[in-house]
């Protein structure tokens, strides 16, 4: 296993997703909306499949949603995550549009580790609210707390 995987994983910022991560650095959850037809898509992409527009405006959303599903990973895992296992990974459907879903983690409070919530207490449908955890200079990851 490479030395790289001892470290945390971060998203690669590209021309499509840069506004998302720019928002996250400022503590804002932003979603792209096609300037041509108003349709939102996630993850970010270069073309709107509804109207073939290539311009998107990024709008701050409420940061509220519900848990659509979740898993609790156990080893074998990459070394960084091995130390945290078992932890939770949740999928959140946003209140504005439940087909916009984000992968994240449920934490008691912003900055808490991703293994701090008892997995037995996690429920599909539970309301959650976004918080952010700064990982690097460029990347703040959205995490979720109970709303």
């Amino acid at each position, binding site marked *: 296993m490479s030395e790289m995987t001892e470290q945390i994983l971060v998203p690669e910022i590209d021309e499509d997703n840069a506004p998302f991560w720019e928002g996250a650095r400022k503590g804002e959850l932003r979603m792209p909306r096609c300037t041509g037809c108003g349709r939102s898509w*996630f993850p970010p992409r270069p073309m709107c499949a509804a109207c073939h527009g290539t311009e998107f405006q990024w709008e701050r959303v409420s940061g509220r949603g519900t848990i659509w599903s*979740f898993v609790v990973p156990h080893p074998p895992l990459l070394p960084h995550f091995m130390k*945290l296992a*078992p932890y939770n990974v949740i*999928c959140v459907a946003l209140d504005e549009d439940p087909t916009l879903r984000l992968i994240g983690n449920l934490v008691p409070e912003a900055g808490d580790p991703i293994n701090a919530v008892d997995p037995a207490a996690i429920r599909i449908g539970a309301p959650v609210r976004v918080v952010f955890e700064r990982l690097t200079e460029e*990347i703040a990851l959205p995490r979720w707390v109970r709303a």
Partner: protein
Amino acid sequence: MSTLRDRTAIVGIGETPFAKKLDGSELKLACQAIVAALEDAGIEASEVDGMASYTMETNDEVAVAKNIGAGDVTFFSKVHYGGGAGPGCVGHLAMAVVTGQCRVGVAWRSRKRGSGQRPWAGVTQEVPGAAGFTRPFGLLRPVDEIGLLTRRYMHEYGGTRDHLANVALAARRHANRNPRAIMYEKRLTREQYMSARWISEPLCLFDNCLETDGALACVVVSAERARDCPHPPAYIHAFGQGLPPQHQTMTNYWNEDPLRGPAWACAAALWRGSEIRPADIKVAQFYDAFSPLIPLSLEGYGFCKRGEGGDFTNDGAIEIGGRLPVNTSGGGLSEAYVHGFNLINEGVRQMRSTSTSQVAGADSCIVTAGEGVPTSAMILRK
């Protein structure tokens, strides 16, 4: 009428032994499996003029053709998306034979997944593309990605761990009858299943396929040529591939209906080309990297209604003697995990009536690739 229907057949199958660790390179294993398949077909390697494999296959056509001593190769194709490729390779060869692009096609997969690195462990620190929105949060492995869909499936339809255990136990019971299977001598009980360690809740150890070294191959020729071969032909009756709208491989969470996966798109193409209907089929080989793919495939390919795939597995229905025995060699869960190619060879054995769990009266068999990734499937018939 489909131009593909019954106009080609699989006439040879070959495979290496399966083990956690095999000696020899993936290239050597690939060539041994292909040569075995050609011997089984009674066809000389110099006649091979068509080749198909997976994009994840490390052995290219040049290396394989050189080693087996192929002649002029006039058709070669690779199918993408890992475990979605298997029947796709066979289908591409069938289309190439029907259209005259080649006469003798070989498909193969060789993989040292048992002794080699786990693909998910090779992730780079900066994760590109859609995976950048999943892996940094610890959704690292295929089992985590499918586990998330499984939990939602259970929530929506009342699926249970007992349903998943039905799948794991059926695979194991079939493997216990198959001396080639890695789990031939290892029994599995429901109690062992329920007390097994978690890999990614709600999935436990026995919901996961094996990690195997091995290689398999098969030979595709025209129906006319097939009748001169030593074994009864397994005719390729219908074939399809499937990539549904707004699909995201493995992490299919970003469309309106994530539980309507690639199997549904593939099924439309498959049944459009088939005279045989799900109700006519008495044995199935469904790709099973993870146990929940069986209920999802039963639904996607129309063997039951949506949401009924879990209950379909009850009362031994998918075991030998049941209504639709599934993965009669033990499948990826208990025979070997070679990206699903063993399901193809087992489908052929069912059509030859030589399976170690032969289904009486089975005159057709569905063989599928992975649900959850852009996929492929075919109907074999006697």
